[in-house]
């Protein structure tokens, strides 16, 4: 019990004194996971919308692949990204392994199926005749897709939250492709694992609290956006 109380005290101290190392780790976590989420939104929303609106043979198979991808284990993603970026791997010449860029790639691969799957479900949940109604109002196809996205904005923003939540909290892929290098590729999750391993529970608790606060802050902002301008 004493260990926890001491840990909480140290955590509070680290937080209020704006410890430069902790701040750096926090900023890198936000930058890596934020960038990965943005990339996953571009691919996920466009792929999910395209699959939802198009009719093609094997659509159900594609949907089941996307749904399977929503549960992609981060360590498996980390493994394959490591192999591709390994010195002798197909993309080894790029020299990205153990860099924040590699972490962004891995996290984007984890988040994209989550965003795609939620987008797909959101678009399929809209009434089928809504597309015809929008076209009958004189919309072009891009206008129709945009209006459908606006109609599905609540579940789409839930997809953004799920995607960000998935990557900010994952640790396996980040350690494997980022290497947890101090001051360079160390993020909140990898640092927490390392400090716990060393028995520095106070620092680990501080990092854990920051991770929770960060997730809470981002999701609060997204919830505000999601719920704003709701008419009476």
């Amino acid at each position, binding site marked *: 019990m004493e260990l926890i109380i001491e840990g909480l005290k140290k955590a509070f101290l680290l937080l209020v004194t704006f410890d430069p190392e902790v701040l750096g780790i926090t900023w890198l976590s936000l930058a890596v996971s934020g960038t990965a989420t943005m990339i996953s939104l571009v691919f996920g929303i466009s792929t999910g919308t395209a699959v939802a609106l198009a009719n093609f043979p094997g659509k159900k198979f594609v949907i089941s692949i996307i749904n399977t991808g929503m549960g992609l284990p981060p360590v498996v993603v980390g493994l394959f990204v490591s192999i591709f970026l390994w010195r002798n791997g197909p993309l080894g010449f790029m020299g990205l392994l153990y860099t924040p860029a590699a972490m962004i790639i891995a996290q984007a691969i984890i988040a994209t199926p989550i965003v795609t799957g939620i987008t797909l479900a959101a678009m399929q949940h809209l*009434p089928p*005749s*809504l597309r*015809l*109604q929008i*076209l*009958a*109002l*004189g*919309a*072009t196809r891009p*206008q129709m897709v945009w*209006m459908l996205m*606006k*109609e599905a*904005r609540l579940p789409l923003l839930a997809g953004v939250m799920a995607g960000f939540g998935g990557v900010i909290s994952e640790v396996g892929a980040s350690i494997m492709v980022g290497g947890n290098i101090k001051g360079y590729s160390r993020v909140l999750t990898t640092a927490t694992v390392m400090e716990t391993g060393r028995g520095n529970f106070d620092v680990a608790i501080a990092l854990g609290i920051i991770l929770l606060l960060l997730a809470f802050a981002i999701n609060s902002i997204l919830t505000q956006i999601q719920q704003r301008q*709701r*008419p*009476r």
Partner: protein
Amino acid sequence: MTLPSPLLDVKNLSVTRGGVEVLDIPSLAIHGGEVLTLIGPNGAGKSSLLLALACLIRAEHGSIIFKGRHVNADNGMLNYRRNITMVFQEPLLFDTTVFRNVAAGLKIRKVPGREIKGAAMAALARFGIGHLAGRDAKKLSGGEAQRASLARAFALKPEIVFLDEPFSSLDPPTREALIDDLHAILKETKTTTIMATHDIMEALRLSDRIAVMKDGRILQIDSPDEVVNHPVDEFVASFVGMETILDGNVTGSEKGIMAVTVGTRVICAVGSLGGGEKVRCGIRPEQVILSASSPEGDTSARNTFESRITKIVPLGLFYKVYLDCGFPMTAYVTQPSLENLSLREGAAVFASFKATAVHVIRR
């Protein structure tokens, strides 16, 4: 005198789904300002025809000519769609305010904001929901939502509006009020309208012409009066409410009156078909008069049959009486008539109808 060229001219329109032809319209011309109603049972192809005419589903064959210009995928499709609009059975309102819903089509057309406000508010007022402009569209009642959907369509001042059973999900009083308002608006704006419904009464109230559809084809397209009183076949007759349909043979004809033998009974009908001709007679229930004693001699009705009441079904404001006259027949009576004549199941009654009330179709 030559007729003005149609606003919308359709030739050899064919739509297939899963290899099955669901629509086959050799020719259909719609003139500016008219209200054409498509009626028919579920699966008759009414909605498919509306969607095909609005270019919202792909037609395998055929041409749609709007104001003399062919409309197809490469040529003026968007321009055509911006001259028409459609209202569906479900209101399909967007998840925003009523005002923004009504403004949606104008915004799509990039109409300046000030004009959008004026046009949307005018359309809302016209449909009696101006006070709901700021409300969440998802919180409207069914009738209010369908009014908002219609206002969204009419705010665009379309050249043609397609209405796909817009009243079918509304309760009767709401439907009545909305039909009345729509009727007034159509008269005022003279908007060319093509509406699908399976309710003949809706069709009669709103239409200049009625097209009766079955299995993707138009069986008859005529004025409401013609369709109701001179249906081209048995299907049209039954669909427009000619409930009694009897097969018989013409056994004689004199002075414009034919004798048609139906079973053991003889019906007098207007016509001059030759003896032996096989015919089908249609009689509308509202044209049958019931009386407690034989009215023969005191009436111009040339047909009177002693009958027995087999069933009485209440239909709200009136009753439907099923009769056995030697052949089955139905009649409508009001509550006071039911009471005055002491009509009940099993009672004997005299059923009369005029020779002009019998619609004869050759078999």
